[in-house]
């Protein structure tokens, strides 16, 4: 098992009478992308800020990169906050040199890294532009580079893909994968559930400051999945043993299986049914979107604001 990069135990934080985070515990491992999910106001940002030592918890324990947060820890962390901002009147190149050196890189090293990363995200030709002249997407990529070019051991990224077109989304995703391959622990906070499904190994879902779901993504999805399969076939389906109901959908069937019926048994029965040809057979797993709505749906709809310090 990979080493633990962030270890959070029984974290509590209140602002006045509002309990923003209540007894939250989780761990993030090196070499994984960890999804931190929750609706607006759930307590994600407060949790992140406590990890980053921007605010102090009322109680609980946080270990970052093997111990308590120190000034030296800052140079091993990259952070892309949800609130984006760059020094508008600084040239992109000067900005990179400034941010890189703040993270402890030498001038020579930061020049080499900045050039490499800017080329990677297709911003090299824009290096002499002032930040105010960058488009939103360019600015977001620039900020990502500023958070990543010192190649930190822990990266916390808040909504890394918002406002990016598919091409730039892919560019950033590749950078994240590269960081993971290097062994960095990545905490990704996002509302884009399909990105989480695609990229994260484990997740924590917070609602009203409380941990609602925590663990392997596959396990979580299995927990919420019903015993249902979707099939595309030609021929008459007839009565299949173990199938409780069959509903036509998108040119195929959605089959609800009875308790104790394994999907493999249904597939075997269909394949052996005369006149039936199975083109596609898939066990339906509840999407993370559906899980999210089930757990915190009411808050998503009302759009309550996050309690921010």
């Amino acid at each position, binding site marked *: 098992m990979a080493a633990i990069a962030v270890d959070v135990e029984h974290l509590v*934080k209140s*602002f*006045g009478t509002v309990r923003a985070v209540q007894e939250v515990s989780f761990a993030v491992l090196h070499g994984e992308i960890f999804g931190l999910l929750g609706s607006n106001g759930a307590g994600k940002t*407060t949790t992140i*800020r406590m990890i*980053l*030592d*921007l*605010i*102090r918890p009322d109680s609980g324990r946080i270990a970052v990169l093997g111990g308590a947060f120190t*000034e030296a820890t*800052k*140079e091993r*962390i990259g*952070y*892309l*906050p949800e*609130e*984006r*901002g*760059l*020094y*508008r*009147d*600084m040239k992109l190149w*000067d900005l990179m040199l*400034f*941010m890189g*050196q*703040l*993270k402890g890189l030498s001038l020579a090293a930061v020049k080499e890294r900045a050039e490499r990363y800017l080329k990677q995200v297709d911003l090299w030709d824009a290096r002499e532009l002032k930040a105010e002249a960058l488009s939103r997407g360019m600015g977001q990529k620039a*900020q990502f580079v*500023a*958070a990543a070019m010192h190649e930190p051991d822990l990266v916390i990224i808040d909504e890394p893909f918002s406002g990016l077109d598919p091409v730039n989304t892919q560019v950033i995703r590749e950078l994240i994968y590269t960081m993971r391959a290097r062994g960095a622990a990545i905490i990704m906070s996002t509302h884009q559930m399909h990105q989480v499904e695609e990229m994260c190994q484990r997740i924590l879902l917070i609602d009203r400051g409380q941990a609602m779901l925590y663990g392997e993504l596959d396990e979580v999805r299995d927990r919420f999945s019903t015993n249902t399969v979707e099939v595309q076939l030609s021929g008459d389906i007839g009565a299949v043993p173990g199938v409780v109901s069959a509903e036509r959908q998108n040119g195929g069937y959605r089959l609800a299986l009875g308790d104790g019926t394994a999907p493999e048994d249904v597939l075997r029965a269909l394949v052996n049914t005369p006149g039936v040809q199975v083109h596609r057979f898939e066990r339906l797993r509840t999407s993370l979107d559906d899980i999210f709505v089930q757990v915190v749906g009411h808050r998503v709809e009302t759009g309550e604001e996050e309690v*921010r*310090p």
Partner: protein
Amino acid sequence: MNFRKLWLVARTTYLGQVRSTTFLVMTFVLPLIVVVVAAVPILLDERDSAATYGLVDLSGALDPSTPVSGEEEISLQRYDTEADAEQARVAGTVEGYLVVAADYLAEGTLAYHGAEAPDPSAMEGLERALRYGLAPEAPPWLHERLAEPAIWQYEALAKGARLDDGFEVTLWAMAPIALSVLFALMLTTTLNGIAPAIMREREERSMEMVLTSLRPVELVGGKLLGLSLLTITQAGIWLLAAAVALALVWINQGTGGWPDVPWHVLGWAVMLCVPGYLLYGSLAAGLGVISGGREQARQITGLLAILAVSPIWMLTSVMKAPLSPASTILSVIPTFAPVLALFRMSMAEVPPWQLWLAAVLLWVSVALAIAAVARLFRASALLYGQILSPRGILSALGTRKEGAA
């Protein structure tokens, strides 16, 4: 405190501003305008002093070969009668004319006729001519003494320096005053730029990212240091220009050598004005952090500028009794120290311990102010553009880290 990061912020702030048009105009064009404005009257005076004057000697006391010497070149035209001289004045040949009365030797009466009074240096030249003319046969040494009866030497109040010339006396007396005025001027012209520089962090939403790289005190301290270095650069260039101008005046006097410069005053000016600027800069930064917007910050900073120049209202009492207990106490209060301590130095020999006390109190105040602003800054950084409430301000000042506002 990571001084490398603090310096990095300071350097970035400095380099970002030093090439700006505003800075270049303020630093180079403004003094140029001042020099031009100051030089025009001098040039006009030069023209006046070279004017021709008439001389009518009704006493017969002046030798016809009387030379007219003085600091300024004077062209002297003799006339036999006042009518001739008046005709020449009306014709514009002379600016005016001096009439040595017939009873001059008994009464010493002189009369000048002209539309305007002659330049004082021209009048001094005429008087020298009169003194010379009274004893045309006198030996050269007597002529020299008659021309310049007294050459003063002054003992400076501080350091026991011996000042040989009125220029040096003026320099020693005026240097502390000029430096304190320069300090007040720099404060009033640059303070309103500090709050927006701090607010920029909040408005451009870069604080949260930056604060994961350094401490708030390093960010605030670095910004203040960078802006202070900018002001020091500007003041240094202005002082250099003033020094060059004074050197030209000195050379023009033809005294020879170089004047004694009150270096100790410059040293104390640095010791007091640098922390003084940092203190006011910290206060301006603090106001920038807690204010609602740039316009509000400018208005509040305007009040701070009034505080900065408030020592001027105390000058009368300080100048009357520079060594009194009241003057001493006022001059060690950090917000007043740079101006009042320097002013006292121009009036009296201030005990060094009082200057040291003022400097130490200033630096302690700077440290406390920067620490307080850093705490406000951290609290403000987490508010996403909201303004710190009074309770939030107290909470931020009272704890090392807090999120509540």
